[in-house]
């Protein structure tokens, strides 16, 4: 604590400056409205849970359908798998040059990582703003 008393702003001055004055309007907050606003949130949770459950049911159904097709029409299933593998190879062929580009010393990975983080941050920020506007 190297500050001398003369170097400090007087506490009474600070108190006077920070306290509410008669000409300062203070908004009213309604507990009931806050309670209602808070209750509207669980709907989003239910929606998320419903979406998750729906996705799970869809996945199980798709798996069942696929198993049935594979059992009934083995050749069709083979063709579908071959097509999927070809598509994966095609995508990999596209991605390899991009990965090579990213591996170039002239393109620092930190720059790409920073770009990714910035995009994620911006998306999150927009979502928060949208949420704040809605609430």
């Amino acid at each position: 604590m190297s500050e001398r008393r003369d170097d400090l702003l007087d506490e009474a001055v600070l108190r006077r400056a920070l306290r509410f004055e008669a000409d300062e309007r203070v908004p009213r907050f309604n507990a009931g409205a806050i309670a209602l606003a808070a209750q509207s949130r669980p709907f989003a949770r239910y929606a998320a849970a419903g979406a998750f459950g729906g996705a799970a049911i869809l996945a199980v159904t798709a798996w069942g359908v696929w198993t049935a097709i594979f059992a009934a029409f083995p050749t069709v299933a083979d063709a579908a798998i071959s097509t999927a593998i070809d598509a994966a190879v095609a995508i990999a062929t596209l991605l390899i040059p991009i990965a090579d580009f990213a591996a170039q010393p002239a393109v620092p990975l930190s720059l790409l990582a920073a770009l990714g983080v910035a995009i994620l941050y911006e998306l999150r920020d927009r979502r928060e703003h949208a949420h704040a506007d809605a609430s």
Partner: protein
Amino acid sequence: MALHTSLSALLPRAFARMGRVTFADAVREHQDELYGVALRILGDRDAAQDATSRALLKAFRSWASYDQTRPVRHWLLRIAANEAISIGRERTRDRDRRTAADDAIEMPDRSPLPDESLVAREERDRVRRAVAGLPELYRVPVVLRYFSELSIEEIATVTGRPASTLGVQLLRARAMLRSALEATR
């Protein structure tokens, strides 16, 4: 939990009879101070109102789990200060808007004032501008100490910082404020 908290908000008298502090009571009793703390930290009315709303919403959601043997005031102040800090950080990204210091001096009453009041108001605005310009580390304890009138130990409870550190931070803050005010004279 949601049922209890919403009932306590909607039916405060019934819960008060059970000897529990209701959320509605807490809001009624502390809303001015929470808004004031947010306003002095942020220096902007809209942002302070937003911070207070968010703080009260968070408090409502955590009301059932809050330990009622501890002072509700400190708990609410902690939430409000954290929300204000959070909003302040968000706002630093939008520096194109009016500065916090400018907002801090905006007053709704534009009626002419006697010279003495005018001088006092200018002095008050200068101090508020200086407080709004303090780094966040110092601004929060200054507001809690000189607006909310909390003791160092209480500020330590609210902020989670050691009391000894807070003592030093308050001294440094006052020194910084003095320098800032002398620089603007």
